[in-house]
């Protein structure tokens, strides 16, 4: 009996843990399959390329696709240089100390701030104080701030994993620090950095709370940085919540899921390439 005790416990624990994991995995698969099964039949080229009409009850989702892409692009264009620059500074140009600690603390805190706070902030600063109104500009800036910590962290990890020997080679060949960073460190860290950027794109596509109060929810095709626009996530939210059109809601959700799947696959591919390169 004494020898049986731990063995039974081991078995029970194994079964229990595995069951919990299986439940988690199946919940996820269920969500994805559920959305795809109802959404895929709605999808066709017209759904993607036609503008929504009648509040989204009919027509497609083209203007929201454009809005999402515009917002995401603007956010990345702002956040990527800032984030990568910060990561370069933290990894290559400093040896720790209070300044570094403050920068790290700031990034970590920023990462924990909920998106609705970003939304509130973007609304008061960009929409009202700076008078950008509900616009791609306000939404893009707000999103950029939100993505910044993710890009900093992933870039930092990518840069840190570049072997120190590469830097020594570059220095010993008579390169300056900046030449070493741009010619040796960044090219080697690029797949990792891009992985972080791609993940951020995924996050910004799925974001709702921060964009609805800064970019607004206009269904019109945006024409400039100052146009209000509605992202796909916001569109889905409005369609579903106000019961405007369930088929169109499912269709939009399916597109969102497909985009996220594609992004995850892409990051996997990039990460694998990155790991292969250094092992």
């Amino acid at each position: 009996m004494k020898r049986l005790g731990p063995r039974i416990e081991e078995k029970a624990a194994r079964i229990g843990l595995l069951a919990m994991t299986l439940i988690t995995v199946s919940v996820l698969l269920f969500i994805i399959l559920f959305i795809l099964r109802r959404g895929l039949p709605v999808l066709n080229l017209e759904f993607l390329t036609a503008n929504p009409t009648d509040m989204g009850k009919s027509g497609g989702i083209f203007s929201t696709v454009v809005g999402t892409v515009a917002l995401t692009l603007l956010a990345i264009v702002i956040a990527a240089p800032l984030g990568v620059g910060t990561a370069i500074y933290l990894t290559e140009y400093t040896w720790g100390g209070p300044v570094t600690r403050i920068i790290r603390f700031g990034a970590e805190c920023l990462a924990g701030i909920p998106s609705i706070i970003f939304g509130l902030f973007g609304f008061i600063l960009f929409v009202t104080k700076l008078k950008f109104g509900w616009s791609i500009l306000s939404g893009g800036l707000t999103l950029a701030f939100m993505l910044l910590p993710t890009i900093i962290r992933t870039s930092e990890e990518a840069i840190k994993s570049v072997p120190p020997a590469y830097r020594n080679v570059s220095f010993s060949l008579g390169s300056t620090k900046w030449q070493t960073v741009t010619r040796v460190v960044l090219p080697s860290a690029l797949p990792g950095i891009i992985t972080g950027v791609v993940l951020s794109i995924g996050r910004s596509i799925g974001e709702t709370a921060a964009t609805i109060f800064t970019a607004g929810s206009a269904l019109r095709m945006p024409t400039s940085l100052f146009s209000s626009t509605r992202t796909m996530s916001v569109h889905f939210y409005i369609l579903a919540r106000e019961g405007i059109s369930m088929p169109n809601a499912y269709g939009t959700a399916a597109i969102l899921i497909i985009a996220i799947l594609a992004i995850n696959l892409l990051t996997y591919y990039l990460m694998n390439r990155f790991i292969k390169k250094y092992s």
Partner: protein
Amino acid sequence: MDGTAKKRVGNKLERNDRLVRLALLVIAFSAVSVLVVITVFIVGQGTPIMFRYGLKSFLAGTSWYPSEKLFGLWPMIVGSLFVTAGALVIGVPFGLSCAIVLTEFASKRVRGIIKPIIELLAGIPSVVYGFMGVIILVPFIRKTFGGPGLSVLAASIILGIMILPTIISISVDSLQAVPPSYREGSIALGATRWQTVKMVLFPAARSGIIASIILGMGRAVGETMATIMIAGNAAEVPHSLLAPVRTLTSNVALEMSYATGEHREALFATGVVLFVIIMVLNTIANATSAKRRKQP
């Protein structure tokens, strides 16, 4: 070597490098500046009204009727608390199980399947989670347990799922950081896998696991869209698991689009409360994981 030519080139390169360094330092302060600016704006917009009406009536007041200038946040504070606690009850056991299976029990192939799936969980937009709650969970709760369905319970379950990626990824990191010698030593002493997990790995990874739970808590407190869709949003202190509830985040998101004047200020004050809670959680999580890093 030609000394003079050498010096001229050198000075130019050095000056460039110093400029680059300065530029990067400025860039590196972007995250901190954003944090400061956000704090200043949210606090600046939200605190005056809190003091005008009194901190106590604001935080402990139980009625939220903006049209009658009643701004009691207590129901929302309790609401956030309940929903977050519920999310942890669901999310922690499942999250830790997954983390243990991933690090200790799964073969390499199984891990290769499970890990990407769990990472997908993090990528699904919160509106989709909320929607699933509305379509599947809420009707189920209504039929099985009665009540409106939109409830603390529904929100807890959905948020519990949503915080899984946070809990899993950070726990996995800290379990993997336990030196292999601990594991081998325990197995060599004749302990089973599970005993090793229970008696050796968990205690060794404790601070990281706690940090993962606290960060998961932060996510649950901060989640907005999913909560709005499934929690019912009644601004009352919930009396049961099946009662509808409004969280701090929902309070902001629901009324922001039309609020003006003091009402809007009160929403910013809601944001301040939320902000303070998040900062406290962040600081605790930071402190626990810093402690972990110090332990060799």
